[in-house]
């Protein structure tokens, strides 16, 4: 590898890093001030790219169209950000933390379909930047002029932001709010003003990133999800809320990726996540982040009680219905019921972490996938019979959770969430590439129940026993002394330690238990579908149970299964009847979030409190 090659590769990494920085800085600012985990940030980025594409092709300005289109797209997306914040997000700031996440998730669905409706699903190649379309020789190697300009734009934006934060009153207030927003509010600053403006700025930065990508990348309707995970990684590696951190992390990740491609081309799936895992294990608050102030932690706002949210006799009525009804149902609905049971258990296992533990996981799919693959491999590789494989699988998931949990529980809040995501992605990459054992992306096929369990109705009863049993055990664990101690640790870790609780040990154990039951859900799922695929580990699979728990209501245990049932049914019906199921599902979710800002179960728990 010669020096010119290294230098040019470095430039490649920097160019990519600058786009990442633009998107991640906006995301970081929004989180820092509003605590909103904005999944829709990638959607804003995508929207800006499509708007830039259309404006560059339609504005009657000739070559200059692109350069006018970029700021216009930026402003346009900033305006969208304004509307989203004022019309939607503002209504749910009072909800438990993370409820905003549900809204932004719904927005991802909606924007995705709107872009498909407006621009069509086909891939598009945007215009090159006029005047910058060529390349310049660097040490005898050609390098795109446009990328050189990008490399300059990134630091300029960083400088602009740094001026904004150090020299303007608004910037000082934003910095103060990032550190302690309650204090800023107490000092007489209207937080709504800060929230709205910072959201608009963040959206406009995402817009700038999207608009500037148009000459380098093609436009696709999945570019939102392609960028969002990476942007989150940058934010977390840099430290939430830190703009210089985002710049540093973007450069680190961009450059490591560029050289990773050169040295380990097969590792492209996982490089970013390995970097994040290492950084978080060494520096639990990212490179330039600060530890969060204890005391006003997540627990205080979630206020999850030990209540079930459902009178006990209804549990029995429901169970009786679940036992009696299926023989009367058509086969397809029986398998939908199995799916509901699987996700109810999956969501309930996450609820132990989120609700009782106050630990929000973005990587719970790892448990699901490990359970599914555990069962599949126990059959295929170890030659075990199906019932044995079914029993073994959750233990495999729990064992992996033991290892992953060891690292994760040392972190808190969003950093914990992102480290779980990193491990889920690493597991995904291993399953995806280890063709000899896991079958790679073609998956493992032929994982069907034993013949005596193979009719839909028989399998249903097995699933009912496993899932209802699992849910009952989780409920018991959550209300047992163990669950109560977990709550104490969540609400005030230091006080809990003072009275002699080993906080980390309890959290670690909760992680393993959640992993076990997530694995049981995965095992039940794999025999329903007959095959296991790496996508069981995907980010989407991790977000789903999160959405279900929030939709049902995180404050009581019954919310998790309820949310799972509602979500699965909505999804099943919407996909059956319309190609634009994302739009339909997204609009329904927005409506539900606005109508039940504490989850569907909130109507019950709120009424009881009154």
């Amino acid at each position: 590898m010669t020096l010119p090659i290294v230098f040019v590769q470095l430039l490649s990494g920097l160019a990519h890093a600058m786009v990442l920085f633009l998107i991640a800085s906006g995301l970081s600012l929004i989180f820092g001030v509003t605590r909103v985990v904005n999944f829709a940030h990638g959607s804003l980025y995508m929207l800006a790219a499509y708007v830039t594409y259309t404006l560059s092709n339609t504005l009657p300005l000739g070559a200059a169209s692109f350069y006018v289109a970029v700021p216009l797209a930026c402003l346009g997306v900033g305006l969208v950000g304004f509307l989203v914040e004022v019309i939607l997000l503002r209504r749910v700031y009072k909800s438990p933390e993370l409820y905003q996440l549900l809204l932004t998730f719904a927005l991802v669905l909606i924007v995705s379909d709107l872009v498909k409706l407006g621009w069509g699903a086909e891939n598009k190649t945007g215009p090159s930047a006029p005047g910058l379309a060529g390349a310049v020789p660097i040490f005898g190697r050609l390098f795109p002029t446009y990328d050189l300009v990008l490399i300059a734009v990134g630091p300029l934006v960083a400088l602009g932001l740094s001026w904004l934060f150090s020299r303007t009153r608004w910037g000082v207030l934003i910095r103060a709010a990032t550190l302690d927003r309650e204090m800023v509010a107490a000092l007489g600053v209207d937080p709504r003003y800060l929230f709205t403006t910072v959201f608009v700025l963040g959206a406009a930065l995402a817009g700038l990133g999207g608009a500037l990508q148009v000459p380098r990348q093609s436009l696709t309707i999945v570019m939102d999800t392609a960028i969002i995970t990476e942007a989150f990684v940058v934010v977390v590696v840099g430290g939430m809320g830190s703009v210089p951190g985002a710049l540093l992390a973007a450069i680190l990740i961009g450059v490591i990726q560029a050289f990773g491609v050169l040295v380990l081309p097969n590792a492209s799936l996982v490089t970013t996540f390995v970097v994040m895992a290492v950084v978080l294990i060494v520096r639990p608050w990212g490179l330039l982040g600060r530890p969060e102030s204890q005391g006003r932690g997540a627990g205080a706002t979630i206020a999850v009680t030990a209540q079930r949210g459902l009178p006990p006799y209804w549990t029995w009525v429901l169970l009786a219905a679940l036992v009696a009804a299926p023989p009367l149902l058509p086969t397809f609905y029986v398998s939908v019921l199995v799916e509901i049971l699987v996700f109810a258990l999956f969501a309930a296992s996450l609820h132990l972490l989120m609700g009782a533990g106050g630990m929000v996981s973005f990587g719970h799919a790892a448990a699901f996938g490990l359970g599914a693959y555990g069962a599949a491999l126990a059959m295929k590789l170890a030659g075990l019979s199906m019932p044995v494989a079914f029993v073994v699988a959750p233990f495999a998931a729990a064992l992996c959770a033991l290892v992953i949990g060891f690292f994760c529980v040392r972190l808190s809040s969003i950093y914990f969430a992102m480290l779980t995501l990193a491990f889920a992605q690493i597991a995904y990459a291993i399953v995806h590439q280890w063709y000899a054992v896991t079958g790679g992306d073609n998956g493992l096929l032929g994982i069907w129940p034993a013949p005596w369990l193979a009719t839909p109705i028989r399998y249903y009863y097995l699933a009912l026993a496993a899932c209802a049993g699992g849910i009952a055990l989780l409920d018991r664990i959550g209300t047992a002394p163990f669950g109560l101690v977990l709550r104490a640790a969540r609400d005030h870790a230091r006080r809990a330690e003072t009275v002699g609780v080993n906080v980390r040990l309890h959290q670690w154990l909760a992680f393993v238990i959640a992993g076990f039951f997530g694995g049981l859900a995965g095992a039940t799922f794999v025999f329903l579908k007959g095959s296991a695929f790496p996508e069981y580990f995907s980010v989407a699979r991790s977000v789903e149970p999160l959405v279900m728990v929030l939709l049902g209501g995180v404050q009581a245990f019954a919310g998790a299964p309820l949310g799972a049932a509602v979500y699965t049914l909505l999804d099943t019906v919407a996909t059956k009847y319309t190609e634009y199921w994302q739009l339909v599902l997204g609009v329904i979710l927005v409506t539900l979030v606005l109508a039940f800002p504490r989850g569907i179960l909130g109507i019950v728990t709120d009424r009881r409190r009154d």
Partner: protein
Amino acid sequence: MNVTRVLPLFVLALVVAAVAQPAAAQGPIKIGEINSFSGIGAPFTGPYRAAVEMAVEEINAKGGVLGRKVEVLFRDDKGQPAEAVKHAQELVAGEKVALVSGTFLSNVGLAVSDWAKQNKTLFVAAEPLTEAITWSKGHDYVFRVRPNTYEQGRMLAEKAGKMKYVKWATIGPNYEYGKRAWETFRERLKELKPGVQVVGEQWPTLGKIDPSAEVGAILAANPDALYVSLFGSDWLAFVREAGKRGLFQKTFVVGILLGEPEYIDPLKTEAPEGMLVTGYPWYDLQQPAHKEFVARFTKKTDKTPVLGSLVGYVTYLSIFEAIKKAGSTDTEKLVAAFRDLKVETPIGPISYRAFDGQSTMGAWVGMTKVDAKRGVGIMVNHEYISGERVLPSPDEVKKMRSGG
């Protein structure tokens, strides 16, 4: 309203849905079509769907099949295998479809195929390219329309093996399709030209290519020729970067599928010239049946056809033909009918091999050139290579099926 009323409502809704199931009378013949109308496959399935609808309209205008109208029920698999299996269950158990068809992504195709095997349902795989569907994971209930990765890789290797290039590199998406596309090509190339060296392999994540770094890595390896199995947005981004950095001037490019309108049209005049590709030069095909197909498709959609349109059309012609031959919609009879089924398609006759279910539909191999008049890349000097010329023998298939 409170939750104590909400919960049983769901159960009630399910029971009502159960009772309200319409009885399956002698209505239309229903066919279940599962495909990726959202997610990573979405950019390519629109024209496929339009052609399927066209085929159905045409057959129904002629009175349908076996005197019954044909109805296709479309379901979106979201690019997820588990979702596709759910639809297969619903279509077969709920809608009583005669067979299931479609799919774009290989892993989705494999999942549905395995489900079909378990549930003894006929599955006609339209677009997925993995060889495993008909070979290592093949079974009696699956048939596949499109020429697979192995066939297309071999077609390209036959031509590339006669060329002077010795130092080869590859770039492809980091999943089975990309890897197998390269392996089949490389193996055949080495047989034909033993001196071939591999100087670099790049495997970017599907849908997330960093073109700048990848082009830099390929330039650093300095190959004479590059085998590309990228497609979709990755390929578009790669072309722009590679063009700027002079990769196409220095390196000969062989691209699997890259002559298909799906992948070359979005590049407009930026399409690289002088690549050896497989694809679909619909603009040059002279068969009257094909010209009519193009005219009807263009009239219906206001767009020119892509390979997906042809595949969709051929898939449904095959299904209609099989139902006619079987004289019934009974699965076992349909499976028997599909074996050695001969179908007249717009591009000539094809058949479905009895021992592995692979169709003999072929592909066109040719060189790329920019057509200044239409403002897109096209294929020139192309040749149609039928599947028979590259497909393995029954014995080889038997070996793959038992080994896999």
